[in-house]
């Protein structure tokens, strides 16, 4: 093993002074965990005390700790981190022995519980002995070098162009070095269509430009363009290629609605632009600010440049592995999306050939909720093998699930506490997390902790505006208010998301259509597009049954999303059309699909329940029904209500576990026999800590032919744009953290 730290040591010889310094400094380990502290915690049994600290940024760290296997994408980013760490630095890998393009690890340990106990002394020893060595060599990972070169060339190239200079640069004084940068920025700027799209469209309508491909937006054209200030825009949009932009940004959404539902009016869910009104300005106030609010730039109409910036995959305030790509206007988020597939890997052949290994595979692929995924696969396999056509959870399985829910929520709370900057919350969450993970959790102390969080000063104020899923403009609310009242008997608070009954039709059961309409007045959803790529085994069921329609439950097996897709959308819009009246009259601007401020219907889990939607698969499980279990919901649909829902769920889980008594049950690891002939489908749903997960597969001749896994994080990742847009960066990150997106669940 190569332990001279060729790529980690400083160049030079050890002399007395350096040796002493190396020895003293090696006492202090600052760990940068990859992919994140949350995963690292799963392998610890107690918090890091004095042995080491976690670093926020690579430049503060002297240990790069790789926890488990990484995808190629993530390895490249880990290599970036390693390259950016100041020397002396140690590379510690727990699990993999070598990951290209990272160098060979200086310390390698097996990925097991408490591996840090062996890894940390070894890392210290490396630092002590090899902080300076003559053998030190520059670390030049190929992907990094080529990326940097590419960027350099691009800049040179841009420099030649130079034609974007209509902006006034406040920093002329800074010499040529950054000049290249500037020019480059402009180039970028001009092509970055982002949020402008819709507004652009309007503008160009005015200017009689022809945008054939967007004819579906006809409906929006009459909206109030009067307020767009073209003067401001002029230079910016010249030379834009709108077709291209739309392909990139919108197409998926518009295409779908526009083309396939000609004649339906999408006014309602698509009116994205209003949020500026309700949000920023009191009614009746017309200042410069209000006049220029619809400009495609900042809401205040100032022409500014936007930064492209990434948060994650290794960001202290976000779940490890989750990456948000943002466009920032100053420190305001204009666009944010979660990158998919960073942790992606393909289903290995061994699993394809041996479906019985699926539970273990899924558990390993989702390290943030292994128990849930193992159970899910087991249930699906049992369903497939046909012993019990619709197997339900046993009590001990439910207890396991609830235990995982507690630890998962605590682990989330630690990340969330970091994002909030509340060290106390983070430390306490970590402490309780380790206790509960080691089956030594103390329910009363956890309850006390929860109580203290709820009473934390300023917290509510801070979180109530953060992560607010943007809702339609006030008029909309008013328009729907009376309808919302009709449903108030169900204990939801519809106030916040009152805008939309329409989509319920989407549940696609003709005979229940009427029903559902009345049931769920409060559901929000806008991302219709979300439905095409994944077929939805309706999580909406949970909701139905929540209202006592047990008779729906049989649908779970029989109704599968795929076939009904078209119908599905159709209904949606059918239902919608009925409400055109309201939606329409406020139709200013509008048309931004992704902004329409309604929760997508495939949203499940705490984030949906925090919006008052009683969607929970546990409602269908007899074990829970017998316990008289009802889901925790909250009104608000913001970061605060999400926090509250999770805190209350932890307490609820504690009670559930206590009720179940000593029947805590070991992991049910019965091996399921897969017949080597014949074929069939296996389906299962389970309520994971993040929402309803469903697994569907097709087994043919004993081999896995097709597998479909629907995870809650996909829907959660889809609303990031809504909960962050036009929010200040800190709020946006808090909002993203409040969703508890598991990056392991959003790979494709």
């Amino acid at each position, binding site marked *: 093993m190569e332990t001279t730290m060729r790529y980690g040591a400083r*160049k030079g010889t050890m002399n007395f002074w350096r040796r002493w310094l190396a020895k003293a400094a090696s006492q202090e380990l600052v760990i940068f965990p990859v992919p994140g502290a949350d995963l690292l915690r799963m392998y610890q049994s107690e918090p890091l005390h004095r042995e080491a600290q976690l670093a926020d940024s690579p430049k503060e760290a002297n240990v790069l700790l790789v926890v488990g296997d990484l995808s190629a994408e993530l390895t490249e980013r880990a290599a970036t*981190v390693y*390259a950016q760490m100041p020397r002396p630095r140690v590379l510690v890998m727990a699990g993999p022995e070598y990951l290209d393009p990272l160098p060979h690890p200086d310390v390698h340990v097996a990925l097991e519980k408490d591996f840090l106990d062996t890894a940390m002394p070894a890392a210290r020893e490396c630092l002590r002995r090899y902080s300076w060595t003559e053998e030190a060599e520059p670390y*030049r990972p190929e992907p990094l070098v080529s990326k940097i070169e590419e960027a350099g060339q691009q800049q040179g190239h841009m420099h030649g162009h130079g034609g974007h200079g209509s902006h006034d640069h406040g920093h002329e004084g800074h010499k040529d070095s950054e000049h290249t*940068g500037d020019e480059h920025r402009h180039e970028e700027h001009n092509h970055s269509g982002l949020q402008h799209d819709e507004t652009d469209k309007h503008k160009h309508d005015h200017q009689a430009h022809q945008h054939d491909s967007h004819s579906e937006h006809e409906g929006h054209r009459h909206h109030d363009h009067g307020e767009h200030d073209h003067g401001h825009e002029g230079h910016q949009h010249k030379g834009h290629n709108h077709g291209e932009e739309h392909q990139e940004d919108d197409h998926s959404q518009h295409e779908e609605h526009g083309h396939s539902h000609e004649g339906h009016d999408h006014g309602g869910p698509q009116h994205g632009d209003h949020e500026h009104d309700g949000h920023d300005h009191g009614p009746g106030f017309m200042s410069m600010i209000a006049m220029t609010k619809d400009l495609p730039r900042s809401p205040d109409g100032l022409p500014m440049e936007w930064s492209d910036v990434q948060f994650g995959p290794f960001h202290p305030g976000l779940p490890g592995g989750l*990456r948000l790509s943002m466009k920032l206007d100053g420190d305001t988020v204009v666009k944010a999306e979660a990158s998919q597939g960073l942790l992606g890997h393909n289903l290995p052949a061994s699993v394809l050939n041996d479906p019985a290994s699926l539970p273990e595979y899924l558990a390993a692929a989702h390290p943030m909720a292994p128990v849930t995924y193992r159970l899910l696969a087991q249930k699906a396999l049992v369903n497939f093998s046909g012993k019990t056509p619709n197997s339900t959870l046993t009590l001990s399985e439910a207890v396991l699930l609830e235990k995982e829910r507690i630890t998962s929520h605590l682990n989330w709370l630690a990340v969330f506490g970091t994002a909030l900057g509340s060290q106390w919350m983070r430390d306490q969450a970590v402490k309780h997390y380790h206790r509960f993970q080691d089956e030594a959790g103390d329910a009363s102390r956890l309850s006390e902790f929860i109580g203290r969080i709820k009473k934390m000063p300023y917290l509510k104020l801070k979180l109530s505006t953060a992560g607010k899923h943007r809702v339609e403009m006030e008029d909309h609310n008013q328009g729907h208010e009376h309808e919302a009242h009709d449903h108030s008997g169900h204990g939801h608070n519809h106030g916040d998301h009152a805008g939309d009954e329409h989509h319920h039709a989407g549940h696609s059961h003709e005979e229940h259509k009427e029903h559902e309409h009345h049931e769920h007045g409060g559901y929000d959803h806008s991302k219709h597009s979300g439905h095409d790529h994944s077929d939805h085994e309706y999580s909406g069921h949970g909701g139905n049954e929540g209202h006592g329609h047990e008779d729906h439950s049989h649908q779970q097996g029989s109704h599968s999303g795929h076939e009904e897709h078209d119908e599905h959308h159709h209904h949606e819009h059918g239902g919608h059309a009925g409400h055109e009246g309201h939606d329409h009259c406020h139709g200013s601007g509008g048309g931004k699909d992704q902004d329409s401020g309604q929760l997508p219907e495939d949203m499940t889990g705490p984030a949906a329940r925090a919006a008052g939607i009683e969607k929970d698969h546990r409602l269908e499980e007899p074990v829970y029904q017998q316990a008289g279990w009802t889901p925790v919901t909250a009104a608000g649909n913001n970061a605060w209500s999400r926090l509250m829902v999770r805190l209350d769920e932890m307490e609820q889980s504690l009670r559930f576990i206590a009720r179940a008594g000593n029947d805590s049950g070991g992991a049910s690891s019965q091996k399921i026999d897969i017949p080597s002939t014949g074929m069939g489908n296996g389906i299962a749903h389970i309520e994971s800590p993040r929402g309803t997960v469903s697994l569907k597969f097709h087994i043919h001749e004993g081999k896995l032919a097709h597998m479909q896994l629907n995870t809650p994080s996909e829907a959660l990742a889809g609303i990031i744009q809504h909960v962050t847009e036009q929010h200040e960066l800190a709020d946006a990150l808090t909002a993203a953290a409040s969703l508890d997106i598991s990056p392991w669940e959003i790979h494709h």
Partner: protein
Amino acid sequence: MAPLTQYLLLLGMGITTAGLVWMLYLIKQSLGQTLDEPGKDIPAESGNLAPKPAWLRYHVHYYGYALLFLAFDMEMAYMYPWAVVYREVGILALLDMGVFLMILFLGLIYTWTQLGLKRQ
């Protein structure tokens, strides 16, 4: 001590600080040079490589406050000498500054009513 000495001391403090910093840099220098490697000089962005410069025309969303700040900060320059002689001059000083501050305060109230006191 004479006031002049005080300012000499102040200068001395500044020079001492600079000297200490210089010594610190010297010691650091003795510990070796930075090894030049690709990516190292790029600001960390949670694992992403951001080779492009970040400087741009930055949108400062609190410019409303900044303008207000200027107005108030000017006014504060008058407050210090006034505060020193306040007790001596008595009620007249209170009225003098009271009127002045009231005008300024009205400005604040006006900004507030115009929704200027928020993030733009």
